């Protein structure tokens, strides 16, 4: 999900910068490496460029996955008895809508409640 994705990009970006930093320090401090300082510098520059690129492009991914985030339940009761039935919400349902005769007795059944339960993730 998005929350996991953004810091991931930022961390990659920071790691790349850190790599470049280490390269530069090594190039200046470790004597034998100084012969290749130009190559190292180009490599470091490439790392820096990659780091900025990851940070800016990575942050741009804004599209959000369309997922159902709630489970809507319709509770059906009866005017004559204490039957209680649950089913998923379907369009056209509303609270106190009469939904035909009761299965158990002669009364009319109706929608007692409609509510949402969040879907637990992970």
């Amino acid at each position, binding site marked *: 999900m998005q929350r996991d994705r953004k810091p991931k990009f930022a961390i990659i970006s920071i790691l790349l910068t850190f790599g470049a930093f280490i390269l530069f320090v090594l190039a200046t401090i470790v004597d034998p490496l100084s012969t290749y300082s130009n190559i190292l510098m180009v490599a470091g520059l490439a790392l820096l460029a990659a780091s900025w690129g990851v940070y800016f492009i990575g942050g741009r991914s804004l599209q959000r996955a369309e997922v159902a985030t709630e489970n809507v339940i319709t509770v059906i009761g009866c005017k004559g008895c204490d039957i209680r039935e649950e089913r998923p919400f379907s369009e056209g349902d509303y609270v106190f809508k009469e939904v035909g005769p009761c299965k158990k007795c002669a009364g009319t059944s109706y929608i007692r409640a409609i509510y949402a339960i*969040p879907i637990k993730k992970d």
Partner: protein
Amino acid sequence: MPRGSGKPQKLAAISYIPWLGDFKLEINISTISILLNIVVVNMVNPVGQGLFPTGNDLSSIILNILWVVFFFSMILLFNQRLQIWTYQRNVEKATIKLQMLADKSREEALKSVQKYAQENIDIRSQVTSFLDFFTIEPVDRDPFGVLNRLEHLLDNRRDRFKAFVAQIAPKAGKAEAANTEDILEAAMALNFIFKVVRHYLILGKKTKSLMIFVQLDMQLPLIMKMAEAYFNAQKTFSAGKPIGDGLGPLVASKLMFGQPKRVIAEDIVCSEVDISNRKAYVLKAEGPGGLLGKPGEAVKRLVEDMGGKVARIFMVDASSKLEGENTGEVVEGVGAAIGDPGPEKYKIEEVATKYKIPLDAIVCKMDLEEALTTMKKEIVEASEIIIEKIKKAIVERTKEGDVVIIAGIGNTIGIGQ
């Protein structure tokens, strides 16, 4: 953020982490200055001289001075520009997201209107231009009668909405038309939020003002949360599900269950119920369409009709919760519990004051998103608690034979009677 809600859109509000951007830039500033130092050193000095030239020759001293000057100019002079970049980037990202939400909600509105529209008629341009519909608030420099004028304008607005929906969606029934109005309201709110944020973004770019960006960036988490709430609300409206704000109507319709109902004011139904030998007039907006009605007008008429012989008025409404409070918490107080722009609240307060009728308020706590999206189980459970509280209060605070009014305030979408 509420734990375990698992909504990605809620996370989006906190995914703007400004410190990460700043931290990142700080690192990059220091690396760039080190890098440039090396470039300069390598150009002038023999290879291997190192990061900080230690020689006593003039060029080394000059280089060291150059390095220090460069470093400080980076930190002191360009600091603000870099900060502007960081904040601007956050705001730009938020604006893109808001535009996406506004576009999506417009499409959603079009889709739900299309179901009731006549064939071969292009409603797109009509709906798009209607999203910019505005209402000018009445002048309050001379406050005399301002609420009457406001009520008049709100009536105008509602009439225009109804006429527009009737025009573009002639096949919609009463409930569907009311829901379509709510869907359009949500799309209008998102459209407005997007336009305001975009305005400040462009203004900030034009004036290169750090303060505009900082202020905008600081408010973004709340703005995004509000936008997400409206966006999710729209989905709930198009399905016709009951929303959290429907708590008041839910309590009222539970109380008036099985009793005959009559319409007593615009979009308001009323029932007479016997509670412990007291006569209770229970009222709510007429469902199951997304209506609020005019509960203030209804209470006023009821009280006036009975010549003020009302022992108590109970009002039930949803109330915005503070962070840290629990959703579905039921709290009691006094006053007119109604969140309208003013006119309805005024009528209730006025008539209660005129006849010295105590006003009892019972509210259920929820946040904006919960008020605008599908009613949660906690809120349904709270309605039972509220009914018990009302019954108890009626027994404790009124005598047998008294008349009370119980008003369930809120949007009755998805709740019949």
